[in-house]
């Protein structure tokens, strides 16, 4: 469920990797969001902004270097990662 982002009063940093970095054309950016936001809100914001075709992309997300679900409640200055599944090794 997409929440309203009215009432901007915190900042998060969003970092982009792999295909997503190429689509957004940047490695990171700071977003202003409402203090009641969850991770899913920021993801929607980013996807709307860059018109990212997520269909079929098995994306993962992180908050402060931990994999996180979209209902994770965000804090001011959280660092969000939009990731592909790990393919190292």
């Amino acid at each position, binding site marked *: 469920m997409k929440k309203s982002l009215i009432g901007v009063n915190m900042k998060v940093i969003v*970092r982009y990797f792999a295909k997503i970095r190429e689509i957004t054309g940047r490695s990171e950016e700071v977003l202003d969001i409402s203090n009641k936001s969850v991770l899913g809100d920021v993801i929607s914001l980013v996807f709307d902004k860059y018109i990212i075709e997520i269909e079929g992309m098995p994306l*993962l997300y992180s908050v402060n270097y931990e994999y996180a679900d979209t209902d994770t409640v965000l804090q001011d200055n959280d660092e969000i990662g939009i990731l592909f599944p790990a393919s190292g090794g």
Partner: protein
Amino acid sequence: MIRIQEEDFSIDEQVCLLKRNHCGAISFFLGTVKSPFDGKNVVALELEAYMEMAEKKLALIEEAAKKEFKLEDVCIIHRIGNLLPGDNILLVGAVSVSRADAISGVNYILEKIKKDVPIFKKEYLEDTIFWHGE
């Protein structure tokens, strides 16, 4: 010891660092750039890491492996950047008094790296380019 780096590494150097007189067993795994991939020649492989998160995850994996198995020390080196077929990608080593622990420790670390560490691969094949997982 954990490193994510562009530079290549020497396994002999890592062996020197891992060796302990009271341990008789060092197990290693070396991953290299494979070509062909899906039947097509690989021109290059690009590796990108979410550095801070990858280092944190590797540190947790190292700690967990040392708890799970009797490992005296562990070495994990993952390369990033642009690599060619045959180039070294990943070295995982573990030293233990026991052969079984050293080998199981390396296996455990490899499984965890594949699953948890945010490092991403872009495959440049002869006629197509894509990110793994795309």
